[in-house]
Each structure stands twice: as structure tokens, then as C-alpha cells.
């Protein structure tokens, strides 16, 4: 069953994970997109504000996207997202972290300009196995309403 707008009432939606993050993938992402010493090299990273090797914030966001995809977006009649209201990087992503993703729906409304769709706003939180919050974010997605999604399939 594909999830539609009606499947996202305001409230807690779900918790997803764990997603294990390796040192190798932290360095691979950083080498390609964010080659700062704090994301590449243990010794250099010790001398930075984050005091040790940490993953790029954009890597953490990209991992969050994949966790959302595997958790529900991949099975949702989603038309994409217009943006992200806020991302807060609260604690560093470390090698061997096991990440959990908490998803809440904070708002769900029918689109005025495209009434066959709705806009669902999510509050996302990523925490590690020690329950330390690494990231908080708020972002809407555009989702088909059930009648349209059904019509499209028939």
C-alpha cells in the first residue's frame, strides 16, 4: 500500500534505524563533498572544535534522507520537497555511531494551489545509541491525496 496524505496525521509517525555509520564512509563522503580536516583525519580533527573525527553535516543530512526513504518515503506518493525550514547540527557524527531517526508530523494541510496534493511538515531528530541528539530538522514534503493516487493507478 502506497502511503498518501491521509496516512500522515499530526503526531508521532515513527522511529527508524539503527543505521550504522563507518569511519570509511565518513571519510569517503568528506573527500568528495566536504574535505575539511575535522572530517578527514583523526590527528588533525583532535585540534578542532569538534575534538575528533566527525562526519560532515551534509553527510548526516544525506544519511537522514536515506533513512527516511527506507522508512517511509520510498513507499509514499511523494512529489518531492520544497525545502528545509531548519537544520540544527547539535552534536558531531562519529565513526561507528548507530543512528536512530524519530519522525513527527507537525502539520498536514491540503495544498491551495494543487488541491489534489497535501503538504506534510515533519520534525526529524537523529540520535545515537547513547541517546545524544545529533540533528534536529523541520521540512515539508508534497504528497498526493488518496483519491488522486488511486485514480493514477487505475
Amino acid at each position, binding site marked *: 500500500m502506497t502511503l498518501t496524505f491521509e496516512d500522515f496525521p499530526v503526531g508521532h509517525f515513527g522511529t527508524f534505524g539503527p543505521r550504522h555509520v563507518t569511519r570509511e564512509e565518513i571519510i569517503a*563522503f568528506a573527500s568528495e*563533498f*566536504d574535505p575539511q580536516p575535522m572530517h578527514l583525519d583523526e590527528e588533525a580533527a583532535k585540534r578542532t572544535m569538534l575534538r575528533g573525527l566527525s562526519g*560532515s*553535516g551534509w553527510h548526516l543530512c*544525506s544519511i537522514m534522507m536515506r533513512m527516511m*526513504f527506507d522508512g517511509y518515503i520510498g513507499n509514499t506518493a511523494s512529489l518531492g520537497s520544497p*525545502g528545509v525550514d*531548519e537544520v540544527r547540527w547539535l552534536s558531531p557524527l562519529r565513526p561507528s555511531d548507530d543512528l536512530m531517526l524519530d519522525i513527527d508530523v507537525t502539520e498536514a494541510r491540503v495544498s491551495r494551489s494543487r488541491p489534489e496534493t497535501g503538504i506534510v511538515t515533519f520534525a526529524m531528530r537523529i540520535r545515537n545509541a547513547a541517546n545524544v541528539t545529533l540533528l534536529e530538522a523541520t521540512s515539508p514534503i508534497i504528497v498526493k491525496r488518496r483519491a488522486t493516487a488511486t485514480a493514477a493507478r487505475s
Partner: protein
Amino acid sequence: MGYFEELTVGQRRELGSFTFTAELIKKFASQFDPQRFHLDEEEGRNSLFGGLAASGWHVGSACMKLLVADGQRQAAEAAARGEKPAVWGPSPGFRDLRWLKPVLAGDTISYASEVESLRASGSRPEWGIMQARTTGTNQRGELVFSFLASGFVPRRSPAA
């Protein structure tokens, strides 16, 4: 990347450009965002995007790549002048990120950054906090991406 004292509101830097080939779009998407419209040309054409579209997180990550490269260029220039380069700190996050138009296969996005606000860090006297409106514009001059980045910038002399 200068020191906090050298930055002024309104200062703008062109960061360079990045071309999103179909191959790069699919590679990033298969790893982090395997939605149909990021993986397949036909699915992209049938979506709201109208073509194979880059993941928004790919558009943001490519921007980060150019921000780091620009910082490395500035550090090299400072070193060539015999100055100690400023090493910027991490970012506490960002606000108001907008994927305004799709980035489609073959698009070249030019990124730029403009200082929007500067303030001292309350808890860390050796650092200031900068907010910068950072944007991406495609080869047709259309604004496609915008966010308000923030980051720790070292002070030449710590706040009193």
C-alpha cells in the same frame, strides 16, 4: 577565509560552479536518495520536475564542496602573503533552505555566498558567528537553490 574582524555584512563571494551530469545525479541518489525521479530519466520526465533531477541533498553537498574549495583558495592566498590563514570552525546548522527549481541532468549551477549577519559567540570568545545567504543559479540565470548558512569564524583577537 578571513578572520571575523575582516568580514562585513553584504560581502559577496562567487564560489564557482558544478555540473550535475546524469551519472553523478544517479550515483548520489542511489546511495542517499533513491526516489524514482532521481534515478531514471523517464520517471523524471513524468514527475513534477520534468526530467532526471538531482537530489536536493546533492545540490547542497555540491555547494559545500565549493565552499570548502573557496576556503582553501583563500587560505593559500593568505599563506602566500605570509599571513596565518584563518581556519573556520564547524557550522551549528542552517535555516530557510529552498529548492526553488529542479536541477536537471546537464545543468551547471554557479554558487555564491553573501554575508547576512555577524555576531560574537556568547560562549566562545575566540569565535564569531556568521550567517551567509548562499545561493545556486543555473546556466539560464534562474535561482534554483538558497539557504541561510551559519558558521563559526575565528577572531584575530578574542573578544574582551
